[in-house]
Structure formats: structure tokens, C-alpha cells
């Protein structure tokens, strides 16, 4: 019995640390879903959401950590909804790409508005859902691409590079590395000697770097998928006195990385600006819930700044030493570019905007009038296949585009059939 009492005391202590606020009318409860708070960038994101909530009288924020676990994220959302019903709004840095679909489904079921950052599941379009207000992302691919490109430029387009990969199984790790590979492809004289999975760990990154240094004597640069691993690599370089000589990059923009850039040990990082992302994400969700304001183009790319020795002082002052102040009512402030849907975004990336509008128009028209679209496509396909056989440049890409258009066409047709 004594022990049962012990447990009771422990649980009673819980009540002290809990900050439950009961549902009131016209108070919006913002659930901030981030991976965890033991990482500086995620803490920055959470802080961004809280800054937004502080700026509004009728918003109460609660940070819900997901540990990067799809399941915990769903549970946390449902727990939150159980409490606040349709007065819950969410802004989430989702646990994974795939889980965004679940996030949206749960929100839809409860009628809660949600803004999603970073990832989105294939075929998941904000326009199709009432609750999915906006998707905002600075694009991991671009971040990986930009840091790699900066390194390669500094290397004068030739030399040897090694890469430190993040956590296996995580989307951002995969996308950043894909960006690195894309940049690598543009520089034929740069060779990637080895890639190792250092799982975001400073210790492992340091160990791998030491091993590389004893194996290769001609490394020019180390591409790391985040700052922590970059810092690990730098510690290994310091032991050899090679810091500053071998280029290192990071990503995320944590305090220690800014200091390393100032000291000349790190070449560059990407300031993903968690404050802006989550703050404005929350603002979009809030506006949609309260005022029914839904952005016309809900797929938004935000600014991710490449921080180098040139601009490090400015960003350190803004993000680390202070917190940035934003006008959250000016929803357009955070927008670098906005797009109606992911499908269009993808198309735009391939065709260029003007061409995309034209082609999409043609496809819609064709679908509506039910002209012999199939015949046209067959002809084009035949041409393309001939092109592929002859090894013509761009033929493969053209085929991809046609396939996409075919998909779009089918969707429109089947949508009308309904």
C-alpha cells in the first residue's frame, strides 16, 4: 500500500508540471508538433510557433514532441484534439514524409486546421483538403545542393570530396544527400571518395573523418548533411591542424556552426530559419481557422539562406543572439514563391512557369473536349522512343513530362466522370 502511495505522490507531482488549459470559446489552441527539443534547430522552430502565439491574445500554444516517430505524432495530435476539438490548430514539422497524409486525415476528421512544414506525402495536395491550409518548406534538396555547390565553387570545380550522411531512414537526410549528388553531377572533375552514415552524430562524424584522413591524403572538402556532423569533422581536422584547409559545410544553422564559420573552420551552412517557418505556418493555420482565410497558392517555398563568412555576423545576431520579430499578419512576408499545387510545382520545375501554364491549359482543354488526346500522346511517345533509341539528348526527360501530362489528363477525365 505504501508503494501505491508512492506512485500516487509521483503522479500528483505531475499535476504540478502540467499546464493544462481547458477549452474556452474563441481561444485557439495551437499544437506545435516538432521532433524534440533536444536539438537546437527544432527548438528554434518551436520557439517560432510560441513567438506567434505570444503575439496573439486568443492563441495558446503547446509544444508536442514526436521524437521523429510517426506514431507518436498521430497520438499527440489526437490527444490534443480530444481536449480542444475544432478549436485545435496545428503547425507541424512532421515526423516523416509519409505521415503527413495521416496528419491531414486526422485534422480533417476533427475539422482542425493544419499547416505542414518540410515534407509532404506523394499526391497529397493542400487544395484537396479543407484542413490542410498550407505547406511551407525551404527544401532540403536545395539546401544540400547549395552547400555542395558552394564547396565545389571554392574548390574551383575540381578535387576530392567525402560526404557525411544523416540518419538512415529519414527523409531530410535522403533529400539533402540527393541535392549533394545533383550538384556533384554538375562538376565532372570532382570525385566523391566515400560516403558514410554518421547518423547526425558528432562523435561518429569525427571518427569517420579521422579514418578518412589516415586513408586519403588528398581530401579537399567534406560535405556534411547537418551542422553537428560538420562540427565533428572539424574537430578531427583540428587534431591534424587541417581545419580551414579542408573545406567543411553544414546545414541547419546552429550557434556553434556560426561560430565555426566566424573562426574560418566551416565554409558554409544553411540557415533554415525555424522561427519564420513555424511562426508563419502557425499564422496561416490561425487565419484559416479564425477568419477563413485560405491562401490561393498553398504550396509555399520559403527563403533558406546560405550562410558564409560574408553574411554570418548578420544572421548570428538575428537568430542566435536575439529572436527575429515578424509581422505575422503579413502572410506574404515569408513567401519566396507560391504555387497552387505540388503537381504544378513539379511541372514548373521541369518546364519553366510560362510553358507549364500553357501546356496545362492545353491538357485541360483536351480533356474537356475529349479530343483524341490519346492519339496525340501515342504519336509523341513514338517519337520519343525513337529519340531514346538514337540516344538523343533530353529524350528521357521529355518522356517523363509526357507521362506526367498523361496522369494529369487521366485525373481530369476521371474527376469529371465522377
Amino acid at each position, binding site marked *: 500500500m505504501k508503494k501505491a502511495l508512492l506512485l500516487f505522490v509521483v503522479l500528483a507531482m505531475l499535476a504540478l508540471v502540467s499546464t493544462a488549459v481547458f477549452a474556452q470559446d474563441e481561444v485557439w489552441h495551437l499544437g506545435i508538433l516538432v521532433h524534440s*527539443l*533536444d*536539438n*537546437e534547430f*527544432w*527548438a528554434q522552430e518551436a520557439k517560432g510557433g510560441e513567438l506567434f502565439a505570444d503575439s496573439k491574445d486568443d492563441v495558446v500554444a503547446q509544444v508536442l514532441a514526436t521524437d521523429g516517430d510517426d506514431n507518436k505524432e498521430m497520438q499527440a495530435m489526437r490527444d490534443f484534439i480530444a481536449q480542444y476539438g475544432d478549436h485545435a490548430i496545428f503547425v507541424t514539422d512532421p515526423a516523416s514524409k509519409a505521415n503527413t497524409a495521416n496528419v491531414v486525415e486526422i485534422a480533417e476528421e476533427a475539422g482542425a486546421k493544419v499547416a505542414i512544414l518540410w515534407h509532404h506525402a506523394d499526391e497529397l495536395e493542400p487544395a484537396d483538403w479543407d484542413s490542410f491550409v498550407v505547406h511551407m518548406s525551404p527544401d532540403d534538396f536545395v539546401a544540400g545542393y547549395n552547400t555542395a555547390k558552394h564547396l565545389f565553387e571554392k574548390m574551383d570545380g575540381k578535387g576530392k570530396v567525402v560526404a557525411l*550522411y544523416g540518419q*538512415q531512414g529519414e527523409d531530410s537526410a535522403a533529400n539533402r544527400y540527393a541535392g549533394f549528388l545533383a550538384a556533384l553531377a554538375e562538376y565532372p572533375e570532382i570525385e566523391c571518395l*566515400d*560516403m*558514410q*552514415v554518421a*547518423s*547526425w*552524430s*558528432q*562523435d*561518429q562524424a*569525427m*571518427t*569517420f573523418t*579521422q*579514418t578518412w*584522413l*589516415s*586513408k586519403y591524403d588528398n581530401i579537399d572538402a567534406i560535405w556534411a548533411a547537418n551542422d*553537428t556532423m560538420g*562540427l*565533428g569533422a572539424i*574537430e578531427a581536422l*583540428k*587534431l591534424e591542424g587541417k581545419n580551414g584547409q579542408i573545406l567543411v559545410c553544414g546545414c541547419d544553422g*546552429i*550557434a*556553434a556552426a556560426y*561560430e565555426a564559420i566566424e573562426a574560418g573552420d566551416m565554409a558554409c551552412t544553411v540557415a533554415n530559419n525555424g522561427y519564420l517557418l513555424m511562426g508563419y505556418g502557425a499564422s496561416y493555420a490561425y487565419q484559416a481557422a479564425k477568419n477563413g482565410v485560405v491562401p490561393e497558392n498553398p504550396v509555399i517555398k520559403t527563403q533558406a539562406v546560405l550562410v558564409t563568412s560574408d553574411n554570418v555576423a548578420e544572421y548570428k545576431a538575428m537568430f542566435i543572439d536575439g529572436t527575429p520579430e515578424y509581422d505575422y499578419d503579413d502572410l506574404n512576408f515569408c513567401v519566396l514563391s507560391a504555387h497552387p499545387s505540388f503537381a504544378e510545382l513539379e511541372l514548373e520545375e521541369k518546364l519553366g512557369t510560362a510553358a507549364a501554364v500553357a501546356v496545362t491549359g492545353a491538357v485541360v482543354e483536351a480533356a474537356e473536349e475529349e479530343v483524341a488526346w490519346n492519339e496525340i500522346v501515342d504519336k509523341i511517345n513514338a517519337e520519343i522512343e525513337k529519340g531514346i533509341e538514337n540516344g538523343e539528348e533530353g529524350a528521357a526527360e521529355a518522356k517523363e513530362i509526357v507521362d506526367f501530362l498523361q496522369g494529369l489528363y487521366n485525373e481530369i477525365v476521371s474527376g469529371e466522370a465522377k
Partner: protein
Amino acid sequence: MNLLSKKDVKSMTIAEQFVSKVEQEALSNKIRVYAPMILLVIMTIVFSIYDSHFFSLKNLVNVLGQMAVPLILATGLTFVLLLGRIDLSVEGVMGLVGSAISLLLLNSRNSNDWGVWGVILPLVLGTLCGFITGFLHVKLKIASFIITYAISTIVSGVAVLLYNSQPATVKAQWVIDASQTYFLKIPLITWIAIIFYIICAIILNYTAFGRAVYAIGDNEAAAVASGINVQKVVIEVFVLSGFAASLAGLVALIRLKLGQVSLGENQMFPCITALVVGGTSLSGGKGGMLQTMVGILIYMELLNFLTIIGVSADYKNAIQGVIIIIAVALTITRGRKVIAK
């Protein structure tokens, strides 16, 4: 009986058979005892032949440097495993102590500069964690697997609370110097690890406490009967393991400078694997400091070699797993009636 003049089994008397059986068993036991060492030598030779980078001075120094943290942890864990217990809390304690030190020395987050106290107090804190673990394990009679897991969860939570999501970089000059100091081409942190290892080896082999650890691991009831205060010894072992984890936290911080919870991540299971490969039994009572060193060396060499030859990162963990199972199968003592748990 001389093995060369082996008689026909049938014509041997039972006494002769018995003598030869005992000799054979003694021989195979000896082989088992030395198997990890033989494995280590073979690995070193094969690896060196396979890739010339492996046996280069530079790489060996690397391996020695990387060995510091695992060696310290494994030294502490040796005592715990000899008791037949397990300590999952070392990762959390490492993170806590590393974070605490980084916040108390000259750093990027605050204006603290506590000098030597900035190291001593966190070490005491980490050791205290070991004491609490041991105390709860003994007094509440909770399996060490669970209690140490719970403590690890709590302690790493506290660590993040300490630095409030923004880890501090150590700026104290002596820490920076320490990470770049070498004696006889071996890094200072490795010397710290080796000195700790030697002290622990002496404690294990030449003190009453060391004998008590073996006694409890082998036969707890008998240890009680011999007047050994089992609870005290068990708590002391967890205190020692807590101190080892704290020291490892300090060394990891010297190596990496950034004080965060992840200093301790993925350190404990590899150490336990290494100990078992070296010949320490998970059920207690069997093993020793020599086995610990051999196990750690085998493990570090394997890790280093897989990186050097550039095994695809996707397959590395899987390959490592398979190799470890084979290594354990080769080196572990198994009789007909041995019970594996």
C-alpha cells in the same frame, strides 16, 4: 598422457580415459580463454594484408584516440557485467556530465568559468547518478535492465533541461589544448582511459572489493555466507560504473567540445558487445580486465576496417552484426549442459 602416444580408446582403462578427458577439457578451455586474443591477432594480420592503410601509424593512432571513450565505459561496465547485472544508464550519464561540464567551464552560452570545479562537480553528479541507480536497484529490487533504463531516460531529460535545447561549446583553452596533446604519439584522452583502465584492473585483481565482485557474480548466496555485504558491493559497482560514464562524458567532451545529450548516444550496446566478444559472460562471474581490453580492440579494429575498405553504409551495420555473432560463437565457452539465456 602424451597426446602423441594415444592408445586405442578401447584398450584404455577408465582411469587413463579420465586423465586424457580432463587434459582435453583443460586444453579446450585454454583455447577458449585465448580464442579472443588469437582472433585479435588474426584480424590484425588479415586486415593489414588486405589494406595497407590499416596498419599505418596514423591509423593506429586514430584507433587509439577513438578507443578512449569505449574503453572507459567498458572498464566500468566490466564490473557491472561481472555481477551479472547490466547498466543501460551510462549513455544518459555521459550526456548529462558532458553537458554540465560544458555549461560550467568557459563556454559560448553563459559567463560561467568555474575552472577545475566545473569538472569535478559534474563528475560527482554523474557518480551520484550511479549511486542512485545502485541504491534503487538494491532497495526496490527492480531488475537492473529496467531501473537503469528508467534512470537513463530521466538523466538525459535533465541534461536537455540543463542546456535548454541549445548546447554550449566549450571555450576553455585547457580543454582545447587537452584534445590536441599527445604523449608518445598517443592522445592524452587515450592516456586518461588507459590510466583509468589500469587502476580498475588493480582494483579488480588486487582488492577485496574485486574478489567480492567475482564472488557475487558467481554465487550470490555464497557471497552473503562469506560475510560479504552484497548490497554495498552492488551499489559500489554502480557507483564505479557511474563514475566511468562521467569520465567518459568528460573525455567525449574534450574530443568534441559541444556539450549535448548525444555525446552518449550509441555507446553502450557496442561496449557490451565488445565485452562479450572478449570473453566476459553476461550472466556474471566470468571475465576480467584483459578480456575487456581484447574485446574493445577487436571491436574498434573491425569498425575501423569496415570504414577503411569503404563497405557500403547501408550494409555496414548488417555485416557488423553477422561478424559479431560469428566472433561470439567462436570465442564463447559452451559445454553440453551450458544454459544460454
